[in-house]
């Protein structure tokens, strides 16, 4: 597709000489008028000839589409102008008037006019609505070769072989023909006058400028779409550029280059370029501002006659001796690269920008690449290196160049690249942080280069290599016209090869496991080892692709976004109004670059492909979710499900009863089928249902069907087979009613009802049969009565011999009572889920959701409380005192690093102890003694045994083992929490279970234990938290506060839980209630349990516990106070209800039966050792670490809460942040 000369041919036709071309403004159509009198209508996108129009006699030189109406116009050597309908594909009418060949015809952009130029030296304007000639412009004195309307103003420009270009003012014509709604007198006069002058000269169209400069005939002329410029092409082989103002027009410059007659020219609709064609078999592109040649495209044999531009998109067409070519001047695919959440791309003005997918913002220009390649050639590819933050850009100029540029750290404004490296190559991509690969297609070499642009190695790729792509770490994907190779760079050989033709692009999935190979009409999905997974074909061009996170490929064609699953199932996601290049999919957003290289977001509905993906992966939860939450209906999905063998799932979507019935039958879901059949009540459905139900053994449904169908025979037989004799006899009655003797006989037979049979025979006068029946069953009396009735005697009868009468079998099992045996209907997982039978997978999400907010609120409240407490504690605690105590180790420290050579250095673990005054860093460094010293000094830690697990935990997390040379032990490296740091004086070890982790995990587990009343576990957890915080480090001062909050919270909980555990240890409730001493203590402890500052919902539990206990022990006054406290806090309604009930009962007799040491009005704290009150004002000791309070007599003992520190020993305070 890509030609070396810089244009991209999109379509070529073969025909006789093409003289006129017109693009359809909307559809991908092009009209070509031929020298052979034919007009062709092509679809240049599909490459098909849509129609031919052959009414002209002789060559057709001019054609044009109407901008809005389904019309086109043509003019030919038969002097005729024909207007055609695109709908009927017929000629509507012919405009006659020209006296010689018609050269060009063009529609006006808004008025119903056509302008034509003819060899009769006139330019004429026609009205195609009333099919009249409006104006004949005379003045040229040789063939008029071309005439065009100005795109906005009332001007016409014409070119003639008289070597002039003329600009005509047609405002008079417009005035005359625009019908004013109201006509004032003046208007009438002026109008009359206008007509008057018309009769003499003509003011409708007056020559405004005559442009002389060509010294041969002028073949073509065109206005610039926006600027006051004109371009003309003449037989003097020149392209001339003219400028006009209100009053004058003059020649600006000449483009020299054609070496034969220049036959056509035009301005590029969007860029500052001029395009021209000539009989020298070239298409030339010129820079409008510099008038220099930009490209030249030469054909071997074909002279060019005409050129046309698409009004909207970047397409041109040129007509030559053997047909037409449609081409682009440049690739419109913006070069881009995606890294994580950032898109890097190159804009039309060659600036590198980035776009953040999460924030949806474009960055300012990071870098300007104006100097790369030639100004009119956009860069082709961009490769990004995150490690170095550099980009590798390739451009097709000069046979392919690449440039390696570092992006500035913070780009703003157009920054010229500094210190870029460049070279020759067609493709260049990064393959590792410090390597990139350059392909040179002309020499067929691949060079691997380092960042200094030095070739480190090079190799010959497979023959015909056209492009290279990243192939996963250490690999390249090499594209040749017929195959894709996976090439191992290290081993320098192809490790896998897949025959796929014409692959142009490779798109890797986000997890790097799959790649999509895009060719013009095919997408091939392969694994990272180049095994083909699936392939699909599109009739229309595939432009780009990107992978969804779930492994769905989204790709864009010229006009659709489509998806493909790994198994090749594909479908349309949405239509596109313009071509875009997909770069990323996230949720419902597809990010893409449009042809103007602007990032855009397209909304898509991913439901369909997600659903299909879920189906493929058998992810039923996901499917359920989708069914519930989206309106996934439509024939296509149903057909898809049915085709894929999931009728039961399809059933969930279908509303239409007929389809529903079909599906229900197919998946054997009889209930649904019955339901629908009832609804529709059509015999055909009942018949099918009965067959299906019979196959299932579900005879009650079969019965119902037969009843509905009035299939009495079948019903009877069904009853017989199921042994339902009562129903059978009812059937007999019904038969009797209906007067259907056959049926009656049959039923009687089934029932073995001989009398009835005889009776029936008698009724229908079949006495012989009646007699025979009676005789056969030995009913002699009956025989006699029959004989009598018929007046015959036995002798007169000639009887055959009878055998034994045959009786139908009697039912042994009442099968009719239940459907049995039935065919086991397999209920899929999915159906079960839909029926709500699966645990943890139900459609009933409402209740859970309803609970959610409530809980959330509660948590919110807890958090708020926690904050409040933190503030209190901050005031209360006397933590921050004293200067940092520098550990002793530092004094004896000699810098080993400075010694030059020989001998061992100190390990990083030693550095940690040196670098930090925190105990935890010493622990991580293995320096346990100094760590203990520090802790002893800071918080008076004396009993280290409980800290052993924590010490070892921290220590174990500090080192990794890196296998290095074979035969030697692994290299030990030290894991840091300062990942960014490389200064050995600043590095610090990683700490497992940091503050954040403790708050998010251990603390919550502690709370859960409290809620679940597992106090032993809870106590252990909270003590564990205390130990973990004691040997820990935080990142900032503010976190120190958080740590303290966590310490005091854990401490309060530990105290609270140990109080309650103490109470439970007193004995079983019975024993306690019998022993007044124990009872008193029990009540006291339950009251103390409510004192520690624990979270409100937990305190409520403690209060409830205390209230119930007091109430049961007839301590109504205490119970009342607890009830009041519960009510004051609020909470769950059930709890409050209980409190209210107890309150009302206690208020009747507010006295305590047992005197306890608990003054509800006094302020006090609980001694953590003795679990007795420490009233405010009395002296107390505390633990310097966790802040638990003790009676003074416990000074010097080990704190019962943290079990590490000495009570009453004041240290410098715990240090967590250096």
């Amino acid at each position, binding site marked *: 597709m890509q030609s070396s000369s810089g244009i991209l041919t999109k379509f070529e036709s073969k025909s006789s000489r093409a003289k006129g071309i017109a693009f359809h403004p909307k559809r991908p159509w092009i009209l070509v008028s031929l020298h052979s009198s034919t007009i062709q209508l092509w679809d240049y996108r599909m490459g098909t000839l849509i129609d031919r129009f052959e009414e002209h006699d002789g060559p057709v030189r001019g054609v044009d589409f109407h901008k809005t109406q389904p019309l086109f116009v043509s003019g030919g050597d038969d002097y005729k102008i024909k207007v055609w309908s695109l709908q009927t594909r017929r000629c509507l009418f012919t405009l006659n008037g020209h006296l010689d060949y018609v050269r060009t015809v063009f529609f006006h952009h808004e008025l119903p006019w056509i302008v034509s130029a003819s060899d009769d030296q006139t330019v004429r304007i026609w009205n195609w609505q009333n099919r009249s000639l409006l104006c004949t412009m005379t003045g040229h004195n040789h063939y008029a070769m071309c005439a065009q309307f100005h795109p906005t103003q009332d001007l016409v420009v014409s070119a003639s072989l008289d070597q002039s270009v003329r600009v005509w003012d047609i405002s008079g014509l417009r005035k005359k023909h625009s019908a004013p709604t109201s006509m004032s007198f003046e208007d009438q006069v002026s109008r009359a006058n206008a007509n008057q002058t018309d009769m003499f000269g003509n003011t409708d169209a007056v020559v405004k400028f005559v442009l002389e400069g060509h010294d041969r005939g002028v073949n073509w002329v065109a206005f610039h779409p926006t600027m006051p410029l004109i371009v003309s092409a003449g037989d003097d082989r020149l392209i001339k550029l003219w400028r006009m103002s209100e009053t004058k027009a003059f020649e600006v410059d000449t483009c020299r280059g054609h070496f034969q007659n220049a036959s056509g020219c035009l301005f590029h609709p969007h860029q500052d370029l001029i395009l021209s064609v000539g009989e020298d078999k070239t298409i030339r592109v010129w820079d409008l501002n510099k008038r220099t040649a930009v490209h030249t495209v030469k054909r071997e044999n074909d002279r060019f006659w005409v050129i046309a531009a698409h009004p909207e998109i970047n397409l041109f067409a040129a007509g030559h001796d053997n047909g037409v070519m449609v081409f682009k001047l440049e690739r419109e695919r913006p070069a881009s690269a995606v890294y994580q959440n950032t898109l890097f791309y190159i804009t039309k003005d060659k600036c590198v920008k980035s776009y953040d997918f999460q924030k949806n913002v474009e960055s300012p220009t990071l870098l300007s690449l104006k100097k790369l390649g030639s100004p009119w050639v956009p860069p082709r590819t961009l490769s990004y290196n995150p490690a170095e933050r550099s980009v590798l850009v390739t451009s097709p100029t000069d046979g392919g160049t690449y440039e390696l540029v570092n992006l500035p750290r913070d780009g703003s404004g157009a920054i010229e690249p500094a210190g870029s490296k460049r070279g020759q190559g067609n493709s260049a991509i990064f393959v590792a942080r410090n390597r990139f690969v350059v392909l040179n297609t002309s020499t067929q070499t691949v060079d691997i280069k*380092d960042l200094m642009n030095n070739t*480190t190695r090079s190799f010959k790729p497979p023959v015909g290599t056209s492009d290279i792509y990243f192939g996963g770490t250490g690999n390249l994907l090499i594209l040749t016209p017929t195959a894709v190779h996976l090439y191992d760079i290290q*081993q320098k050989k192809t490790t896998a090869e897949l025959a796929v033709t014409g692959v142009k692009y490779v798109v890797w999935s986000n997890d790097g496991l799959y790649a999509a190979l895009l060719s013009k009409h095919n997408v091939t999905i392969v694994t990272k080892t180049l095994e083909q997974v699936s392939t699909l074909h599109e009739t229309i061009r595939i432009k780009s692709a990107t992978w969804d996170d779930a492994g769905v490929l989204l790709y864009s064609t010229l006009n659709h976004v489509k998806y493909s699953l790994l198994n090749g199932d594909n479908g349309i996601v949405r239509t596109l109004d313009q071509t875009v290049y997909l770069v990323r999919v996230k949720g419902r957003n597809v990010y893409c670059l449009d042809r103007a290289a602007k990032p855009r977001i397209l909304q898509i509905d991913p439901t369909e492909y997600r659903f299909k993906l879920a189906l493929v992966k058998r992810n039923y939860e996901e499917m359920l979710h989708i069914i519930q939450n989206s309106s996934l209906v439509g024939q296509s999905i149903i057909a898809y499900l049915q085709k894929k063998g999931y009728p039961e799932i399809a059933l969930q979507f279908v509303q239409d009863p007929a389809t529903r019935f079909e599906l229900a039958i197919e998946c054997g879901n009889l209930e649904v089928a019955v339901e629908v059949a009832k609804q529709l009540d059509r015999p055909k459905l009942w018949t099918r249902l009965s067959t299906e139900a019979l196959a299932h053994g579900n005879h009650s449904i079969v019965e119902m069907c037969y009843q509905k169908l009035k299939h009495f025979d079948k019903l009877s037989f069904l009853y017989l087979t199921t042994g339902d004799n009562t129903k059978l006899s009812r059937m007999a009655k019904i038969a009797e009613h209906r007067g259907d003797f056959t049926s009656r006989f049959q039923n009687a037979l089934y029932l073995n009802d001989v009398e009835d049979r005889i009776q029936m025979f008698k009724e229908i006068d079949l006495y012989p049969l009646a007699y025979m029946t009676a005789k056969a069953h030995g009913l002699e009396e009956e025989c006699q009565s029959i004989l009598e009735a018929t007046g015959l005697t036995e002798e007169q009868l000639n009887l055959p011999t009878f055998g034994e009468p045959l009786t139908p079998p009697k039912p042994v099992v009442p099968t009719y009572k239940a459907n049995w045996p039935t065919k086991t209907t397999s209920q899929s997982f999915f159906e079960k889920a839909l029926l709500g039978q699966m645990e943890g997978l139900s459609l009933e999400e409402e209740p859970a959701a309803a609970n959610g907010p409530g809980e959330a609120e509660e948590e919110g409240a807890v958090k708020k409380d926690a904050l409040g407490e933190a503030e209190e504690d901050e005031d209360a605690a006397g933590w921050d005192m004293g200067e940092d105590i520098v550990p002793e180790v530092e004094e004896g420290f000699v810098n080993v690093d400075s010694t030059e050579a020989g001998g061992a*250095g100190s390990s990083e673990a030693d550095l940690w102890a040196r670098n930090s005054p925190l105990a935890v860093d010493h622990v991580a460094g293995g320096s346990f003694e100094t760590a203990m010293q520090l802790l002893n000094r800071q918080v008076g830690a004396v009993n280290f045994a409980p800290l052993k697990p924590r010490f070892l935990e921290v220590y*174990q997390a500090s080192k990794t*083992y*890196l296998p290095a040379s074979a035969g*030697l032990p692994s290299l*030990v*490296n030290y894991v840091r929490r300062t990942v960014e740091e490389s200064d050995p004086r600043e590095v610090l070890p990683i700490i497992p279970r940091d503050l954040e982790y403790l708050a998010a995990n251990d603390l919550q587990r502690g709370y859960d234990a409290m809620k679940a009343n597992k106090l032993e576990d809870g106590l252990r957890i909270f003590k564990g938290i205390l130990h973990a915080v004691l040997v820990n480090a935080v990142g900032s001062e503010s976190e120190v506060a958080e740590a303290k909050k966590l310490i005091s919270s854990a401490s309060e909980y530990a105290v609270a839980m140990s109080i309650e555990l103490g109470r439970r240890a007193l004995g079983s409730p019975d024993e306690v209630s019998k022993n007044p001493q124990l009872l008193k203590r029990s009540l006291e402890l339950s009251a103390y349990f409510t004192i520690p500052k624990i979270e409100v919902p937990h305190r409520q539990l403690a209060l409830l516990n205390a209230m119930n206990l007091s109430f049961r022990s007839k301590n109504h006054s205490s119970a009342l106070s607890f009830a009041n406290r519960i009510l004051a806090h609020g909470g769950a309604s059930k709890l409050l209800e209980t409190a209210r009930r107890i309150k009302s009962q206690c208020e009747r007799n507010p006295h305590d039966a047992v005197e306890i040491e608990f003054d509800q009005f006094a302020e006090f704290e609980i001694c953590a050792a003795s679990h007795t009150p420490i009233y405010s004002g009395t002296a107390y000791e505390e633990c310097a670490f966790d802040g638990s309070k003790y009676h003074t007599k416990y000074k010097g003992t080990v704190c019962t809460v943290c079990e590490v520190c000495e009570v009453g020993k004041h240290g410098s305070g715990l240090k967590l942040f250096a």
Partner: protein
Amino acid sequence: MDPYSAEGELINLHSHFHQGQYQEAADYDASALSPENALAARVLQLRARVALGRAEEVLAEVRGAAEPELQAVGALAELALGRADAAAATAEALAKAHGAANATVQVLAGTVLQAVGRSEEALALLAQHQGSLDAVALIVQIHLQQNRNDLAVKEVAAARRWAQDSLLVNLAEAWVGLRLGGEKYQQAFYVFEELAQAPATSSVRTLVSQAVAELHLGRTEEAQAALEQALKKEPENADAIANMLVLSVITGKSPEEWTSALQKADPEHPFLKDLAEKSDLFDKAAAKYKAKAAA
């Protein structure tokens, strides 16, 4: 020409060995190699077999061999079998006799000497090398084990100048990078990842290395994935288990599962030895403190 260089015919075997693909190295078809490379190839394959734990059979194979290279392999095999003294004696003798000129002897004897703790002798021996990347890599590792990061950096930088893109230089640089940290972590990660993720070069060792780099970068989830991949390939790999253990501690999980796995896989692993040592240290240190009044 250096037979291990990119154009040499031993490149693949050599790469396999240093990428930790010992099985591939041992199975490598060496029959097509030119005669002058046959011995070097055999040494590499024998070393690979030692690394695969087949030291016994290697020792039997080289017993009585005249070539100093094979004798050196014998020393390595003895070392692997735990007979450190015998190994060291052989290595010392070989170093004296052939150390000045024979690169293979330098590397193998150097390895043995370092392994028995005679680092200075090992360094002195290796310093005589003439453009052997194996020796460079070994020197770098010895420096790192001695915590002489500065010397390791110098050694790598010097090697980088004459052996730009060699696998061993890249590896050695990554080892140093993991020690230095900061931005070097990421670069080391790239090296290991490149090796570990390409099917042709992936091995348990490279996977473990990648995981270690990720661990140092604080990317615990990725590290876990890489380690799981490694353990899937070789469930008994002690280094993978040890690092997994460290990882689970860092992420706040209980490491017991891995501790017992490591005990089973390699009771002599430095991690376990070190931990037992520290545990004793703790008890000793803790005994110095006690509360004034008994609790």
